[in-house]
């Protein structure tokens, strides 16, 4: 058991942006919200899955919506706990522990605010190990758990309870409501007892994000060394260094889909690379050769600072280092690949782990 303070939040926010693989929303807003909440209500207790009791009720707290809305319509304090309180009412018992559903991006920080305000303990784990665009892309879904009952809330005082038949329906229904609520909402789903949660989550991801942030913020290290330390920690690879020479974005059923083209710089001079994204980076290629594909993680870093760049902020001329990390093993099972592999996103090739792709290089 330990406490999350303002310093830890600074690091978690940066690490969460790395694990956000270009999506998951800019954690800057989440960082300010979490720091403000801790200033106001005090540090938050963080426990590991080993410290979790079997009969404790654990609830993931998350935000749903467009990152572009969140950076403009800053969330209210009310909605951070409203979905949680609605859930307690529905199931008729108090929640013991909260956790992030998604460690990548802003959702890593939302439960910290709820925990601070309600005096709840937080679990050091999540259900993605990264960021994904859709609500069923969670380990709970892979393990056959149901999200129901799902509670949602907005800043205006609306709360909703859903009893969807599965994770895919939860995504579909919640998405429509989120748009009606003004493009952002807070959500509680997959509430479970400690003994179930333990077997299904990806453990220790908050402290992982914190460690990544620690490397990237280390003033003693040069940018390259920061990136290298992070790669070591995540067993990752440096795919290439390049300049963005073209960026194309389009709308496709509510998601930003796009293609970024890069010309290699330094050691990769003379080569060309492409990244395909749908909110998150999904596929990286050198010419036609596959370098890495979802569900493995692809992150774009600023070469000057080593800090991650989100897909919205990718801009013509930016100089970047592109890195890749292996995803959690649960995503490499047949159901994991079916849920978040390249074919789910409409690419006509099979998943190959990044380690194998890099061995061939």
């Amino acid at each position, binding site marked *: 058991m330990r406490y999350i303070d303002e310093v830890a939040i600074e690091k978690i926010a940066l690490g969460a942006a790395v694990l956000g693989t270009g999506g998951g929303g800019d954690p800057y807003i989440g960082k300010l919200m979490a720091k403000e909440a801790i200033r106001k209500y005090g540090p938050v207790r963080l426990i590991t899955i080993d410290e979790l009791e079997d009969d404790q009720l654990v609830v993931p707290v998350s935000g749903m919506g467009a990152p572009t809305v969140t950076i403009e319509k800053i969330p*209210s304090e009310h909605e951070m706990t409203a979905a949680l309180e609605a859930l307690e009412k529905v199931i008729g018992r108090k929640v013991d522990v909260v956790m992030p559903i998604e460690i990548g991006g802003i959702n890593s920080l939302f439960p910290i605010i709820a925990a601070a305000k309600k005096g709840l303990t937080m679990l050091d784990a999540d259900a993605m190990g990264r960021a994904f665009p859709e609500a069923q892309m969670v380990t709970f879904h892979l393990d056959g758990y149901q999200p129901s009952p799902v509670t949602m809330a907005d800043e205006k005082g609306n709360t909703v309870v859903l009893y969807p038949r599965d994770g895919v329906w939860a995504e579909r229904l919640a998405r429509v409501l989120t748009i009606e609520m003004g493009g952002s909402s807070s959500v509680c789903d997959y509430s479970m007892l400690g003994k179930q949660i333990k077997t299904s989550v990806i453990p220790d991801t908050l402290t992982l994000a914190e460690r990544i942030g620690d490397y990237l913020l280390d003033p003693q290290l040069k940018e390259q060394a920061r990136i290298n330390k992070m790669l070591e920690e995540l067993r990752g690879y440096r795919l290439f260094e390049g300049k963005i020479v073209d960026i194309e974005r389009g709308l496709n059923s509510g998601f930003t889909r796009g293609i970024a083209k890069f010309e290699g710089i330094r050691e990769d001079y003379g080569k060309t690379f492409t990244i395909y994204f749908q909110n998150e980076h999904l596929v990286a290629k050198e010419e036609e050769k596959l370098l890495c594909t979802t569900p493995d993680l692809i992150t774009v870093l600023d070469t000057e600072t080593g800090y991650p760049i989100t897909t919205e902020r990718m801009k013509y001329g930016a100089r970047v280092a592109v890195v890749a990390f292996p995803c959690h093993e649960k995503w490499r099972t047949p159901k994991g690949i079916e849920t978040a592999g390249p074919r789910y996103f409409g690419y006509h090739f099979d998943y190959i782990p990044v380690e194998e792709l890099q061995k061939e290089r």
Partner: protein
Amino acid sequence: MYRLGIDVGGTNTDAALLDNHLQVVHTVKVPTTKDVESGIFNAISKVVKENKIATSSITFAMLGTTHCTNAVVERKRLNKVGVIRIGLPATTSIPSFTDWPHDLREEIEVASTIISGGYEFDGRLISELKKEEVLKFCREVKGTAECIAITGVFAPVNKEQELVVAEWVREELGDIPISLSHEIGSIGFLERENATIINAALRKTGKMIVDGFAEALKELDIKAEMYFSQNDGTLMNESYALRYPILTMGCGPTNSIRGSAHLSGLQDAIVLDVGGTTSDIGVLSNGFPRQSSLSVNIGGVNTNFRMPDILSIGLGGGTHIRETKDDFTIGPDSVGYKITQKAILFGGDELTASDIVTRLGHAFEDYKEQVEHLPASFCKQVFSKMTEMLEDAIDQMKTSSKETPLILSGGGSIIVPHMLKGISNVIRPDHYGAANAIGAALGQVSGEIERSYSLDQMSREEAIEDARKLATEEAIRAGADKSTISIVSVEDIPLAYLPGNALFIRIKAVGDLISIST
């Protein structure tokens, strides 16, 4: 007919005189003074006297200045601001001034409130405005607040509520200066709110710039129209500058790039400004500096303000070269402005980049003997390493492997070789020392529009066309001649997770100053 450009820098205040055809007639340099105004006065009177032109023949006077940046960084001459945020019940999780340096907040904030109102991304209301909330706040800050900053959620999409609230503020507080966020920034609430507050706090400074410049011109009997440089390389007129003093921030590097562009006659090039300590590399694209994508921090505050994309490396004319056991190091420290005492070629005892190029016969012909004792082979090694550093940095700024021209400016540019990898030709224009002031004098004005469109009612093309029209109107409002206006950038970003209907568009229009082309 002439136009006059002034650039107030940290060390020098430069003035440049351009004729009707925008040819540089004369440039001067004087030390920047503590009060800034007398430096401006000195520079203008010097350039006018040395060139002996009739003051009545100057029709335009343009000023680029660091006043506002200094005011924020030094926390001086800032106005007390009452801060109104429109967005209740949203936005409460991050109050105004969160993440500001404590001392700056102390200096600026009178009181802050969040009132009911704000829009959703699609233009619906978050909640109705309540007049009583506005009046109550006004009564609280009456007598203490010198300016009011108003920021509404999604105001860049719909400015209506900000205008209504401003009207109510005037009812209670009379003719108080008001900064409205939709006039200052784009989507990105906190950064826009920060910029709006800073803009309000700069009222006094803005007035001082305008009055000071007017005063200097009047004393010298120059009846020119005044313009002020913005960070994006365009100008604004007096009334714009009074309302948006924040937009004068960071115009120095932009003017330098624009000035270099003009002197060389190029529209697309890499611009390398070598000073005593650093080399600053910028990119000229379409006649304007390429903007950085990172949000800019002003005096410790994050803003949505954009600045030119500049890469600085620690290599300048005064950069220290040190021999090690069997190698050497270059910088990053420098003897700086003390180069004329400390460098070996000037009789000092510190080896600098300038000594290396002098030994190799590239510069300072007259001081050759001073450095003759340096081994030529060593100097060649150092020089090729310096060249490599420059080439590497230039390459990082380029957007394609195609060879590009390079325009040099700055006193330290003697250290740059005549040929560089990836560069088609190296250009050293005349008057390159005053590129900033020349950049200021180049009269173009712009209008920019940033807003979200709902594509349910119109096509993407129609939305972009509407934005083009609005940007053009903005440019005309800023003083541009309609017939010269062209659209220099179009950017559209679909709002993720919102099915098929929301598109954010940012468009910028640029044109010549109206009275020049007619």
